[in-house]
């Protein structure tokens, strides 16, 4: 027996799986022992069964010298049972196949080891967890000759764009080993990344953006932010920025770069000679030094500690804390900077201005214009022109209709012309009415927006210019001497009593510490200012009187305010 075992062991080393090997011995049940090869009992090579480590296959090994004629199915089944492999049709078929294969060699005693897989289990199919893969942004063709500043590194997601694809979880399938035990697989895990409300998962696995913005992707969350937070400054590393939503720049903005956002723009550090455009507010924490090349524009408010060398356009209010130097500024609302020095350049503040000092002791040209709205002025002028053209065309048409009407018979083309003229005359009146309505609306907007008042809290230097825009042009005051603040410069008020106010007072300068008023002409040379439109004349072209129009607006506003007061009072 010892010798037989050693031989089997040798056979095992020559190729059969070494683990869990069982050899047929005569120590088994008497019936089984009788079925074993006769040579085995004589110490010759005996068959053995090995189970693979993964328990998915059983291999029968017939070593060199194994007596082929004595191999029986029963003995091999017993061998399998010793290895806890249950009897079954598959096992029997496998064993019978192996016996047949051994017999087919035609040898009485095998001349070389034979290994035969006689039973296989079923491998489990593992589950696949749900996963998400981000879509790569499309490569933009900027061309070799393109401006390097234009190559933005910022990825802007547009509404409806596919930003990722989700592969759904797939359940696995349990397996079965050669002993009939279940090889269980884990259930698949769902998507670990949470999709927020700014994105939507479609049925085909695409994740689309529900709004424009910046992609936010972490291990936990995927979404679209409305704010683009840029941790550096804007320079060649970032390229220009042109995004929907807000932009927050932690650094500054380098020369010649452009930052454009449909909403707010906020910059922490200095803005050089760059262009910044905001659809809403523009906030510069460290100010802007544009050296005459910069541009700032926003539809609403601009806030900055200091601005120099910029062209500035703000739809609403502007607040500058310390200095506004060498700028060309147009403010749709009010300019506020009670401690701000306004030096050189031009500041047009439609809704009035409050500032610290105006002008420089050196006499640098500094102009403050209050109460003027250039765009509405231009619109009123254009409407008046259109009205004039429409009226002239109407008169020419009427003349032609009279001419044609006096003829006894019209040619075909004249008949068509007559029809056309009658149709045009029908359209004339509604057109004139629309023009008049638009003109009245512009005048109302001007009355609301324009405040021809300036408050200077510290000092007006000699040579500084203040323009108080008015309906008939305006007045320009060039200060012949320095004036100490706080003072308030007030134009005539146009609320129905314009003529009286003009005649009696004219523009005045009020000392805010003593509340005493004196004519502006006492400290400044006054002259007519003609850049603004003459609204009195424009109104006359529409058959209106400006002071009556303004009075009617004022009455309507008062009536509205009274109505509101009564409504609140219940």
């Amino acid at each position, binding site marked *: 027996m010892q010798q037989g075992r050693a031989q089997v062991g040798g056979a095992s080393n020559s190729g059969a799986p070494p683990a869990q090997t069982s050899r047929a011995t005569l120590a088994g049940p008497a019936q089984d022992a009788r079925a074993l090869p006769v040579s085995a009992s004589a110490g010759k090579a005996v068959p053995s069964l090995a189970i693979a480590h993964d328990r998915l296959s059983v291999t029968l090994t017939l070593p060199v010298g194994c007596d082929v004629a004595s191999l029986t199915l029963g003995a091999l089944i017993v061998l399998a049972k010793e290895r806890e492999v249950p009897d079954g049709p598959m096992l029997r078929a496998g064993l019978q196949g192996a016996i047949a294969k051994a017999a087919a060699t035609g040898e009485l005693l095998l001349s070389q080891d034979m290994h035969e897989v006689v039973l296989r289990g079923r491998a489990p199919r593992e589950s696949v967890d749900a996963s998400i893969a981000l879509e790569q942004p499309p490569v933009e063709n900027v061309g070799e000759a393109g401006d390097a500043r234009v190559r933005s590194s910022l990825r802007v997601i547009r509404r409806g764009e596919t930003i990722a694809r989700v592969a759904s979880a797939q359940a696995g399938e349990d397996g079965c080993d050669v002993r009939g035990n279940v090889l269980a697989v884990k259930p698949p895990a769902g998507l670990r990344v949470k999709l927020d409300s700014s994105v939507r998962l479609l049925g085909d696995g695409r994740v689309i953006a529900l709004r424009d913005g910046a992609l936010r992707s972490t291990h936990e969350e995927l979404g679209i932010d409305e704010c683009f937070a840029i941790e550096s400054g804007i320079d060649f590393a970032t390229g220009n920025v042109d995004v929907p939503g807000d932009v927050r720049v932690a650094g500054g903005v380098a020369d010649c770069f452009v930052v454009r956002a449909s909403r707010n723009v906020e910059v922490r550090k200095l803005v050089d000679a760059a262009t910044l455009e905001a659809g809403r507010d523009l906030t510069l924490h460290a100010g802007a030094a544009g050296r005459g090349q910069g541009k700032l524009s926003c539809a609403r408010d601009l806030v900055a500690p200091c601005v120099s060398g910029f062209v500035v356009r703000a739809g609403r209010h502007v607040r500058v804390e310390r200095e506004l130097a060498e700028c060309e500024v147009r403010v749709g609302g009010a300019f506020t900077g009670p401690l701000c020095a306004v030096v050189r350049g031009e500041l047009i503040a439609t809704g009035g201005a409050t500032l610290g000092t105006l002008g420089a002791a050196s006499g640098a040209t500094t102009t403050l214009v209050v109460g003027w709205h250039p765009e509405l002025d231009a619109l009123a002028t254009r409407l008046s022109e259109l009205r004039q053209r429409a009226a002239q065309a109407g008169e020419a048409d009427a003349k032609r209709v009279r001419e044609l009407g006096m003829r006894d018979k019209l040619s*075909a083309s004249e*008949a*068509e012309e007559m*029809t056309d003229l009658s*149709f045009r005359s*029908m359209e004339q009146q509604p057109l004139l009415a629309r023009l008049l309505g638009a003109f009245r609306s512009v005048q109302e907007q001007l009355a609301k927006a324009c405040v021809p008042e300036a408050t200077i809290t510290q000092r007006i230097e000699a040579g500084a210019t203040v323009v108080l825009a008015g309906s008939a042009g305006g007045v320009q005051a060039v200060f012949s001497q320095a004036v100490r603040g706080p003072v308030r410069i007030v134009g005539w008020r146009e609320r129905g009593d314009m003529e009286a106010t003009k005649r009696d007072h004219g523009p005045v300068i009020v000392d805010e510490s003593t509340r005493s008023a004196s004519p502006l002409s006492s400290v400044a040379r006054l002259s007519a200012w003609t850049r603004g439109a003459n609204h009195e004349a424009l109104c006359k072209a529409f058959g209106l009187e400006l002071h009556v129009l303004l009075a009617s607006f004022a009455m309507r506003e008062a009536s509205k305010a009274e109505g509101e007061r009564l409504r609140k009072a219940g």
Partner: protein
Amino acid sequence: MRILLVDDSKTMRNIQRAVLAQLGHTDILEAGDGQDALSKAPAFRPELMLVDWNMPNMDGLTFVKAWRAVNKTTPIIMVTTEAEKARVIEAIKAGVNNYVVKPFTPDLLSQRITETLAKCQQPATA
């Protein structure tokens, strides 16, 4: 309602279109002459046609006769400078439902369209 305007003058078509728009009709197709109208009308299936008489390629009267050969019901208004009685009768014989003489005012055209539509819809509703 689908309306076909047949006139070689763009200005006249614009006027007619504007009058029809005031009456609430916006489903309008334009043709520059009778031949153009004959090619467009079968697919468009107009429910009213405004047709000029004097046009290049195919005049309005020829178009009306050709159209009436295949369609007896579509209301047709002839809009033309041809004001002589004989011409009006000739047009009516050819199958025109109503007649507007140029020059016309927008009010007159509007009135004729309303009249014609009312007349032509009467038998159907009755």
